[in-house]
């Protein structure tokens, strides 16, 4: 059985990727399951989707714990524990990462026995308009790596799943998918199908047993206000707004008022400050600032600059 997990951010098309791959397997004569799992169910937040495909009846259900192939559309998710990208990976797993960095860098960084392949990130990956196509690229690369899906079947599956979109969008997705499929074709069949799992091998999650308590003990009332600040929605961000204080006119209200999340407060000196722990990277502030004093840079670049400054 093929067990494949796609990891990405809401809006990058991982659900679509799993549906395209699922449809392709189905057209190739497989029994298929494909399903998305949302966390925050919001654009930018980590999500994953999974596909099971087998020639026989599939009796497994639920999340894939032992993936044969893990496809990562957004490499910033790998280091995020909540995204669970590396969960259940072992020596037989193949990991495909959409990244500017090399397989060696990722192997070292993750200290994993899994094989790692790179789906070379396009130079314009910072261009958010290209994001919708990542789903088709990932599905096509996965199809090639499984080695049982032909180019024609893949294209037919894309046409099935994107039928509601305009013809030029479908055409563009097909082109991008074909390029990715060809890029991976010399690695065709690299994904090793995992054996059947028995209930006896099931490793339960590391749950902590909680003794039964009276309601007032086990169901705590929250007395503190604004506890949502504990949730670091800054992790959703792919682009970071940065204020150029030389250009900021100190209007004291525009970015602060329009920021939907209230992540920009005006300091005592009259200049705004962005709370990067929570800024989701919508970039409304960039679009609204009259003197264009806020620019957006890829989050990855911003983090590299920060770590460079620290060392």
């Amino acid at each position, binding site marked *: 059985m093929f067990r494949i997990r796609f990891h990405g951010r809401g809006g990058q098309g991982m659900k679509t990727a799993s549906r395209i791959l699922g449809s392709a397997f189905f057209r190739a004569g497989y029994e298929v399951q494909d399903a998305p799992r949302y966390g925050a169910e*919001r654009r930018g937040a980590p999500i994953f989707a999974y596909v099971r495909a087998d020639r026989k009846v599939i009796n497994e259900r639920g999340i894939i714990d032992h993936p044969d192939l893990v496809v990562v559309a957004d490499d910033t998710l790998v280091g995020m524990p909540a995204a669970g990208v590396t969960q259940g990976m072992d020596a037989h797993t193949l990991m495909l990462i959409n990244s500017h960095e090399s397989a060696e860098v990722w192997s070292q960084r993750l200290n994993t026995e899994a094989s790692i392949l790179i789906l070379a990130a396009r130079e314009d990956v910072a261009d958010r308009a290209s994001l919708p196509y990542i789903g088709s690229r990932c599905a096509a690369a996965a199809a090639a790596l499984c080695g049982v899906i032909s180019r024609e079947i893949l294209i037919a599956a894309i046409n099935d799943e994107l039928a509601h979109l305009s013809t030029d969008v479908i055409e563009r997705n097909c082109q991008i998918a074909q390029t990715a499929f060809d890029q991976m074709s010399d690695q065709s069949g690299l994904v090793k199908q995992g054996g059947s799992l028995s209930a006896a091998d099931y490793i339960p999650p590391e749950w902590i047993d909680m003794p039964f308590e009276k309601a007032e003990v086990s169901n705590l009332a929250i007395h503190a206000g604004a506890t*949502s*600040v504990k949730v670091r929605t800054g992790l*959703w961000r792919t682009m970071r707004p940065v204020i150029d204080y030389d250009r900021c006119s100190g209007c*004291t209200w525009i970015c*602060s*008022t329009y920021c939907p999340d209230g992540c920009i407060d005006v300091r005592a000196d009259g200049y705004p400050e962005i709370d990067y722990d929570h800024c989701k990277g*919508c970039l409304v502030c960039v679009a609204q600032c009259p003197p264009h004093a806020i620019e957006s840079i890829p989050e990855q670049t911003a983090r590299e600059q920060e770590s460079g400054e620290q060392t």
Partner: protein
Amino acid sequence: MSKQSPVHFHRMKDMPSTHLLGTGTPMCAGCGGLETLHTLYDILGEKTVFVNAAGCMTLLSVYPFTPFRGGWLYTSMGSAPAGAQGVRDALDILLQKKKLSAEEDVEVVVITGDGAAYGMGMSATSAAMDRNLDFIYLCYDNEGYGNTGQQYSAATPHAAITSTSKGSHGYPGYKKDLFAIWAAHNPAYVATVIAAEPLDLAKKIERLQSLSGPRMLISLAPCPTGWDYDPELSVEVGRLAVRTGVWPLKEYIDGEVRHTKIPKQRQPVEDYLRLQGRFRHLFEPQRDEAGIAEIQARVDAYWKRILEE
């Protein structure tokens, strides 16, 4: 509730520069509804209790996290105003029994999406207005059932593509006039607002603070996820909704309807429609002249009526 309005919003610089609503909510990046809510909360302050019907914003408070500094109550889609009645009654009883001082009293605020306000919650809202319930109601109207994937609602505009109106002409129906329906109940206050016009929003919030009884706000809530545009355009889309005349800003008070911002020279509606993927079929693959002209004609007819009055 003691009625007072300590701040006066005359110019943009009077807008709050620090914010009360906690960050870290699960609302989408660029959420136009959250933009309205944070301004409402900045101005109303901590002495509030929110009654939230099921919808996107139910996710604001997922135990143990909440962006509010006070109470929050979750109700089913149809019954938020009924929940507000219960909370208001409980507060009034405590006040009467002197178990709560006037200073400790709080304002009861209902928040619902358009699915609840324009549809399922209509009878509970109507009944709350009949009983002259002292509460504030904010409807964040993103013109569809956004939390479940943007199915059409009674607030969906004509021709919009939603996940349940995917045909080549989009949603065949027309947006319900909730302002008129609410105003017909003669409540203390009804207004349409939008976060892209913050001063108009702030003035209206200030006005409703000085009143008691049912005080109703309908905020158009540009929705990057459901309307299909880049999140950074949220304010631009909202502003164009006003400048094209698609979303008239108005208020109902003392039996009169007054328009608070009349666009001097209305931009063509296509400036607004063109930015949104849900209307893309009006422009691609070929321009649907008749479709665009129909939407323009309806907006023109509205303003002709208003300006002649």
